[in-house]
């Protein structure tokens, strides 16, 4: 994990004081709310329906026990005893007092955390594969590059007043667990034929009201030129992105309206100019210096098979279920990656109480080399657990209602905060997620359905990523009543696709039944359990689903 040195500590401390000064000017009336808004957003402070919300950056979703305990402490002392993990691998507190924000930021700074650029029209928290450093299929640790990008983008003097927000994600495996193709910049670490490290680069992906899949502009960018190239992309966007309409201001619209070939030429021209001056070309020593922070922990040499683990699977049905869904293969024999579901049936997706955070911190410290990850699917991950220890971890999680064996299943739902919290929302998201989870609560039924991602957004801004849900649900307001529009066939992985609207929307009362109809239709038409919902939809198209949904209409 990256650790602050004196420079980083002073940087964050100065940022806390800068923001304290801005808050004081707002509270004294020197700044109007309009003047203050862009300043507070730059530091993750939103004014929501009921209170201020503070969004805390968790760079590329990596936490340790000390940080997680501090988040638990903040939840208890300054909020209502819980926090909400987001699809950008961040954490939100929803019941914050503005005048307490500087103190919270100071408490965060003590554990090397901050809220810088978690909102506003700037480069947001860089996200990465939540299995980084543990996944069996990765060729490098993507967090090395995410950290380099985080530093470069922090209070960047040229790119702090962009047309709109700007999101970057990094993966280092063919399997895309970070949805890179729906980011403004998506980076895949790869090796060329000569064995050199570099990046495939996509630009102009994004969700929101105009969802678009990113376009590949580089098949191989040399590792050393990562920052030169990103600076070029950002400069082209900053100068040419639309500023006349906030809904057309993302990079995706510029790419779409200008054409990817022309944008790629503009980026390359800018890149050549930046690269020629060499100021951002990364020295190998600097890459190595950052990489050292992400060196693998001291894994033990273990047999690939753990008899304690196998015995527990044989003994306990609930443990076997947990392993099936929530334990992923680790690159090191004898270890596993444990997903902690924050989607207990009936609970708000992504929420964790202070007590749960503390328990997970304890488990991380004891069993996972002190590491915890936040996934963009709003779950937590213990990345490095010995197979021998997983039964004990499971038992401890189960006591805290954290062992729901539903990772990737129909009840592992992504939902935005929706109208329960958010001033932008048109409809509630969390209660719909809760009701769907309750309808499909039977774990045997979930297993039979298999991998199925439901994603719910409470408005067109798509914070719940509904466009890339296998089943996407969008809340809309129709004459003061909440309605839900369903899209099918979206996917945020390496086979990225945008879901198609299946037909007219459903009322809040109808929407859970509609989801069930879709699921039953899939079960009826699939070629077998090996054909997932997404594969079946891609084979069948939406016609049979539409027919089943609207047959009586």
């Amino acid at each position: 994990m990256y650790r602050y040195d004196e420079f980083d500590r002073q940087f964050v401390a100065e940022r806390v004081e800068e923001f304290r000064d801005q808050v004081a000017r707002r509270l004294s009336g020197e700044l109007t709310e309009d003047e203050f808004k862009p300043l507070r957003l730059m530091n993750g402070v939103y004014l929501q329906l009921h209170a201020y919300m503070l969004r805390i950056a968790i760079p590329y979703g990596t936490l340790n026990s000390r940080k997680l305990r501090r988040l638990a402490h903040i939840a208890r002392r300054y909020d209502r005893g819980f926090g909400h993990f987001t699809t950008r691998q961040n954490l939100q507190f929803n019941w914050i007092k503005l005048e307490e924000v500087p103190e919270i930021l100071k408490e965060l700074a003590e554990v090397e955390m901050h809220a810088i650029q978690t909102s506003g029209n700037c480069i947001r928290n860089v996200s990465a594969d939540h299995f980084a450093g543990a996944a069996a299929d990765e060729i490098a640790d993507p967090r090395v590059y995410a950290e380099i990008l985080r530093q470069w983008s922090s209070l960047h003097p040229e790119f702090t007043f962009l047309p709109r927000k700007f999101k970057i994600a990094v993966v280092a495996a063919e399997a895309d667990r970070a949805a890179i193709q729906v980011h403004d910049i998506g980076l895949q670490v790869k090796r060329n034929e000569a064995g050199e490290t570099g990046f495939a680069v996509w630009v102009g992906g994004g969700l929101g009201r105009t969802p678009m899949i990113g376009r590949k502009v580089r098949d191989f960018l040399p590792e050393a030129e990562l920052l030169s190239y990103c600076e070029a992309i950002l400069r082209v966007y900053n100068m040419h992105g639309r500023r006349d309409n906030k809904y057309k201001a993302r990079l995706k619209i510029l790419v779409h309206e200008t054409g990817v070939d022309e944008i790629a030429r503009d980026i390359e021209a800018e890149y050549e100019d930046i690269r020629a001056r060499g100021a951002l070309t990364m020295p190998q020593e600097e890459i190595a210096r950052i990489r050292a922070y992400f060196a693998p922990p001291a894994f033990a040499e273990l047999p690939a098979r753990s008899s304690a683990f196998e015995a527990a699977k044989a003994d306990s049905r609930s443990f076997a279920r947990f392993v099936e869904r929530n334990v992923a293969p680790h690159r090191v024999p004898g270890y596993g990656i444990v997903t902690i579901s924050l989607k207990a049936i009936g609970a708000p997706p992504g929420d964790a109480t202070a007590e749960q955070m503390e328990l997970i911190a304890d488990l991380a410290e004891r069993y996972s080399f002190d590491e915890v990850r936040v996934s963009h699917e709003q779950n937590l991950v213990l990345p490095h657990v010995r197979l021998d220890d997983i039964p004990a971890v499971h038992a401890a999680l189960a006591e805290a209602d954290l062992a729901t064996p539903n990772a990737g299943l129909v009840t592992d739902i992504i939902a935005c905060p929706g109208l329960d919290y958010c001033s932008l929302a048109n409809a509630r998201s969390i209660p719909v997620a809760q009701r769907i989870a309750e309808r499909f609560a039977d774990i045997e039924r979930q297993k039979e359905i298999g991998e199925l991602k439901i994603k719910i957004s409470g408005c067109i801004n798509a914070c719940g990523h509904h466009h890339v849900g296998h089943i996407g649900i969008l809340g809309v307001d129709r004459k003061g009543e909440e309605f839900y529009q369903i899209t099918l066939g979206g996917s945020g992985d390496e086979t990225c696709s945008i879901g198609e609207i299946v037909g007219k929307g459903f009322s809040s009362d109808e929407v859970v039944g509609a989801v069930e109809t879709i699921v039953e239709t899939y079960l009826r038409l699939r070629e077998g359990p090996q054909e997932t919902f997404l594969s079946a939809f891609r084979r069948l198209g939406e016609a049979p689903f539409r027919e089943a949904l609207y047959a009586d209409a």
Partner: protein
Amino acid sequence: MALYRNGSFVADDPWRILGADEALPAEGPVALPKARFIAERDGLAGRNAPLGVVIEAGEGLDGLEDDINRLSLVVLTFPKYTDGRNYSTARILRERFGYRGELRAIGNVLRDQLRFMLRCGFDALEITHEGTIAALRDGRINLVSLHYQPASRDEAAPPTAGGHPWRRSSAGRL
């Protein structure tokens, strides 16, 4: 309105910034809107006084490439402080074209953006916002002084840089 240049407020501004239709004075330094500058370029060449140009946010440098190094003033506008386009223009002027003349920001120039502007190569700020003028006069500007990336102005690495090639410090100045 006050002009803050190279670290302090200056009382005398020799420049006349002309609109599209204002008559050209017989002598003295003048800055013209970009389109007018290009249209009157040939006539201006014989003028025995410093020349400047005013570039609105979004206009960019196209068409001015060959003129840049005979300019003594470039004025970049910030119609709203959230319009960041001219931060890029400033850096391109300084870094790609090696422009060494005065680079002046006008418009919505506010205290929380000052250091970003200076780092992008501005050396003069025309400020109308009274609170910002007062804060600068009283030294009440509270901005992060450490930076993770190189920009346009010459900046030293801080003592705590730790070998990092891009760390910079604005300690001791705005």
